[in-house]
């Protein structure tokens, strides 16, 4: 099935009246997910948003609850506000990252309502990539520029129209109600085929990475890896699968908010105890933690590698630390037989 772009534009504008429409929009030279009111505001022909789509469900800074001090009593009020939302233009890598984050924010014991309520009330419309950059390596991470994992329905840009593929129940319902759908003609089929086998070309190999890391905690490779790293948060803030956050307090006179904001394992204070002891004292331990968490610990806990190959971290890094190089180096490192 397919829908022409201008028909979709009308549907989009109609939906905007009773849904919160979030889509990539260019603002001050950067393309990021913003609230849009009509389809014309949506940016066309972009590689990917600068900040990851996780911000839709896990914003950089949000108020968990507010409280009011009256004398010695305190009233606490939940600050979670959720709106029916449609997220349009989510790239397959970001969408796949949602599935990884779902496992974190809805683990075996607790459910994080701030992430999960937004996630449940949002229809994710993926937009397949029509071009790949040399920094992308999603094909090597078990997905592809056209994969549907994490989306409710996937649009594939055929030029004049979008091919539509429903993925989840929510997606099927939405497509069922969608007017203006047409059959794909032969020319579309050809275009669809070529787009479908679009692949990223990168030498990253993750087949044996997790086992290798099992026995690499004390490997000398970690001693030199971290040296040029500045220890800033640029890579973790642009990563779609990074989920660490800090909980702090904002308090003025008698009213306060408990707020949550993105945090980074690369920041020195991340694990610093009140007593001053810091289990991960230096950049070496922090870089090792970043690699072990994404490619080993997460696999042991959730069965998947916590990286979708979007390439944002290596583009954001001021000193060009390239995750693909680190993965290759780990693969090639000979194990020190103890």
């Amino acid at each position, binding site marked *: 099935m397919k829908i022409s772009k201008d028909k979709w534009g009308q549907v989009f504008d109609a939906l905007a009246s009773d849904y919160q429409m979030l889509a990539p929009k260019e603002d001050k030279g950067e393309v990021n997910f913003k609230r849009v009111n009509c389809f014309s505001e949506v940016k066309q022909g972009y590689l990917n948003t600068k900040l990851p789509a996780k911000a839709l469900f896990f914003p950089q800074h949000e108020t968990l609850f*507010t409280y009011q001090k009256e004398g010695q009593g305190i009233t606490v009020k939940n600050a979670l506000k959720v709106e029916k939302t449609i997220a349009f233009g989510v790239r397959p890598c970001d969408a796949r990252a949602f599935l990884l984050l779902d496992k974190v924010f809805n683990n075996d014991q607790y459910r994080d309502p701030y992430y999960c309520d937004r996630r449940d009330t949002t229809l994710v419309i993926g937009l397949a990539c029509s071009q790949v950059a040399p920094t992308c390596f999603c094909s090597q991470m078990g997905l592809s520029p056209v994969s549907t994992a994490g989306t409710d329905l996937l649009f594939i840009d055929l030029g004049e129209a979008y091919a539509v593929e429903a993925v989840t129940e929510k997606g099927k319902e939405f497509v069922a109600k969608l007017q203006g759908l047409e059959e794909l003609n032969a020319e579309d089929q050809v275009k669809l085929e070529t787009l479908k086998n679009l692949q990223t070309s990168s030498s990253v190999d993750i087949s044996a990475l997790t086992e290798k890391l099992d026995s690499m905690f004390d490997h000398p490779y970690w001693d030199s890896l971290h040296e040029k790293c500045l220890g800033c948060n640029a890579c973790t803030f642009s990563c779609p699968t990074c989920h660490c956050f800090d909980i702090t*307090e*904002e*308090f*003025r*006179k008698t*009213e306060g*908010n408990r707020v949550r904001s993105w945090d980074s394992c690369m920041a020195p204070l991340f694990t610093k105890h009140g007593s001053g002891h810091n289990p991960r004292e230096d950049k070496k331990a922090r870089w090792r933690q970043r690699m072990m968490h994404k490619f080993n610990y997460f696999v042991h806990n959730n069965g998947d590698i916590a990286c979708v190959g979007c390439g944002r971290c290596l583009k954001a890094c001021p000193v060009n630390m390239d995750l693909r190089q680190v993965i290759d180096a780990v693969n090639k490192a000979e194990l020190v037989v103890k």
Partner: protein
Amino acid sequence: MVMGEIQESVNLPENQEFQPKIVAFLCNWCSYAGADLAGVSRIQYPATIRTIRIPCSGRINPLYILKAMANGADGVLVSGCHPGDCHYISGNFVARRKFALIKSLLTHVGLEEDRVNFSWVSAAEGGRFAEVVKGVTDRVSALGPNNGVFKVAERRGTDE
């Protein structure tokens, strides 16, 4: 010097005209004594300043001024000894360079000129201190409440 003290400001009577909240960092040896002298000699000046005593104008860290503005101060006055009278000899000389750079940068980023003020008031100039406070109060009142460059959104920020 707990920042929170700025908040426990005297609740002024609610008349319609805007009463600015001005944070005054007064150097203990001169300006604080000057303010004291103004009080002792019954010289009236607007009760819009919240005084914070500092050992010397050299003790001022630019963050004090920025944090005061962030937490809702409408104006800031920093006052120390005249250059040469400093109890610590070079405290205000060092501060002078800092203040010049602070004032210039704050104006550069779009903060109104009269929001942040610096002055030298000696312990003997009670009257002049009152004049300075009147002048600052009038100019800040003319500018209106500070919801400009450094003011953190309502209920945000922290005064811990």
